């Protein structure tokens, strides 16, 4: 199975397809980020006219860095220049490729998106966004979290077991097995509130959150369809708008006056952000996530501490510590560096118009009802033998990931 980031990136694409405007945003700064990105130069204090640190502008990560470090780089924190050049060379060969599987198969037409739709940026300096633990990997899950993840995976694989995807041993069925008899589990509720695509479309709740235009939110590390944030400040106030997920943009209004978090019974998709300044760094504590969100298995108990620092006029450092003792055996930390984008070009898609053009979700349900009717009338195969969930086959495997 792919990690959460890439699979959510791909499913977003389906839901938002009809919104039309796949805004491809050219990265304005020619990359070649300084290899010594870890050495933060003493920054001239950039301040707003009212004297607070100035983080304003449109920001994006201008390079591609995997969340977790590939085991082949072991303890190597930074790529060498030679490694980066090789990776860029390999990866640029994939640009605009249209990967196909056997023509006429379900999997071939399931790939709604190919490389043309994906932003591919130059390889970043780091071998992983994760800077703690030192191995660049997400810490081990707790036994309870492993059990839950396993139960969830088993359920999803059961729904796929009678399909061509499992018969042909596609990567989408890895860990599962082919059985021509549909699983009785198709009548069951998932082990927990569903947030990801499954091979069943009984109702909207069977859709993934991106398919339902309910993309999660924080932490936001970007995806191949782009990830931009616009920060606007006012004395004592900060607003951040995220342009992510092809029109699933959302916003944060950071509460900066020192008051406590929301009551525990008030839960939000994007959590509750409380910020304060530590020197030139904006520190934001985020809690109160909704039970309907999921980040790598963490839900309402997710706790983030973000640190935003303007390190150079064109650079914003973002460091976030991620904690949920019920899910991970220790807290872990991700670091990203964002580059400033042109205010005048304003290449930011700030309308979260996903539901307005969501033909995908009703289409999946309409298709499922049609297949059920055809089966009932003896005109078609058992619906559970069809795979209406797997969607990534059109995208090349990025050697960086």
């Amino acid at each position, binding site marked *: 199975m792919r990690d959460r980031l890439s699979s959510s990136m791909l499913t977003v694409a389906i839901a938002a397809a009809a919104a039309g405007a796949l805004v491809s945003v050219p990265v304005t700064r020619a990359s070649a980020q300084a290899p010594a990105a870890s050495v933060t130069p003493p920054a001239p204090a950039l301040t707003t006219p009212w004297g607070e640190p100035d983080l304003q502008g449109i920001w994006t990560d201008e390079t591609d860095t995997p969340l977790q470090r590939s085991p082949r780089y072991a303890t190597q924190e930074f790529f060498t220049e030679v490694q980066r050049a090789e990776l860029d060379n390999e990866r640029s060969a994939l640009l605009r490729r249209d990967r196909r599987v056997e023509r006429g198969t379900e999997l071939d037409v399931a790939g709604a998106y190919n490389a043309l739709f994906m932003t591919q940026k130059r390889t970043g300096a780091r071998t992983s966004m994760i800077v703690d633990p030192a191995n660049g990997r997400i810490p081990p899950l707790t036994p309870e979290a492993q059990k839950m993840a396993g139960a969830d995976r088993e359920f999803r694989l059961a729904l796929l077991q009678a399909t061509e995807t499992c018969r042909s041993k596609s990567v989408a069925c890895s860990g599962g097995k082919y059985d021509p008899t549909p699983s009785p589990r198709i009548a069951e509720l998932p082990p927990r509130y569903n947030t990801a695509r499954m091979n069943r479309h009984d109702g909207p709740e069977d859709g993934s959150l991106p398919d339902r235009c309910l993309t999660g939110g924080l932490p936001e590390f970007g995806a191949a369809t782009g990830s931009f944030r616009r920060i606007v400040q006012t004395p004592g106030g900060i607003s951040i708008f995220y342009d992510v997920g092809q029109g699933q943009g959302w916003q944060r209004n950071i509460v900066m006056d020192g008051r406590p978090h929301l009551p525990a019974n008030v839960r939000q998709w994007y959590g509750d952000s409380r910020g304060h300044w530590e020197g030139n760094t904006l520190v934001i504590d985020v809690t109160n996530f909704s039970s309907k969100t999921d980040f790598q298995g963490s839900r309402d108990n997710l706790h983030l501490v973000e640190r935003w620092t303007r390190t150079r006029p064109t650079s914003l450092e973002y460091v976030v510590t991620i904690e949920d003792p019920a899910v991970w055996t220790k807290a872990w930390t991700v670091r990203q560096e964002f580059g400033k984008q042109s205010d005048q070009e304003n290449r930011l898609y700030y309308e979260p118009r996903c*539901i307005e053009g969501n033909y995908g979700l009703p289409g999946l349900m309409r298709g499922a009802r049609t297949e059920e009717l055809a089966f009932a009338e003896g005109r078609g195969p058992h619906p559970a033998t069809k795979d209406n969930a797997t969607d990534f086959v059109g995208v090349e495997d990025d050697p960086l990931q």
Partner: protein
Amino acid sequence: MRGRYLGSTITVAIAAAAVGAVISASITQTSGQAQSARPAAVGGKPNFSGIWQANNEANWDLQAHAARPAAVTQQGVYPYDFARVPAAPVLALGAAGAVPGSLGVVQGDGEIPYKPEALAMRKENAEHWIDRDPELKCYLPGIPRAMYLPHPFQITQSTNKIHIAYAFSNTARTIHLDKVDGPPDDTWMGHSVGRWDGDTLVVDVTNFNDRTWFDRAGNYHSDALHLVERFTFRSPDVIWYEVTIEDPKVFTRPWRIAMPIYRRAEPNMQLLEFRCNEFVEEFMYGNLRKQPLVRHWEGDTMTVDITRKVPPGDLFYQWYGR
């Protein structure tokens, strides 16, 4: 191009979809602590930062109207228009489903200068409110409607950008005070370019699509919509908000609306999410469920039975019924 489900004929709808508007916050005169820390000016200009909300009936109908029993009515005992009664979608809500009256926010003679054919469309819109109003589907509300929806919004004012975050459906817009390129396509929320006229913020809004409405009464526009908004402080907690509305495809001349918008002065005020696209999934897609939750889907038509049952424990009713 509209989606299949948009064209569906939903004769009546879940009551909850029609509610929601009548609740508006009570605004007090007490200024919160958060407000006292906010400077009156940013870069020498009046500082509109803070959380705001209109407190009027404009979202029901921009024009003057008497209170009526419900947003959706049907003929009652009498065959008269003035004696209509609530229809099924809102019947179970009692007085909470009724529409409050208003003197309207349209300036001058109070009329909206529709072209004749556009006026006919407006009437048709009103008759098919549940089927057509984008608010019920949680679509982006557009401008100016976002400014007087019964939901708060937050202004974050800097020197080159003013960002407005609306609670309704994650909607946002940025007012550009500096030089900016236009958008690549039409938009739901428009492209907002601002300038200062003394202490008044003047915002020119263009690049609209034709999908949004002005209110629940079917008032609408085309993609030729052009707005000029004016924001002026009346007092530290009241903005006077005026909009000149121009759309030569729909109206015979420009017209204006105006209203106060009030600061949400509660000391602990915070913009909370109202992510309604989740709330409207049944409304939008219920006909496509394997096991319908609403019992009467016939094809794409939802029919709602209203059951009014007095629950045990309604002491007032028991007392009254004795």
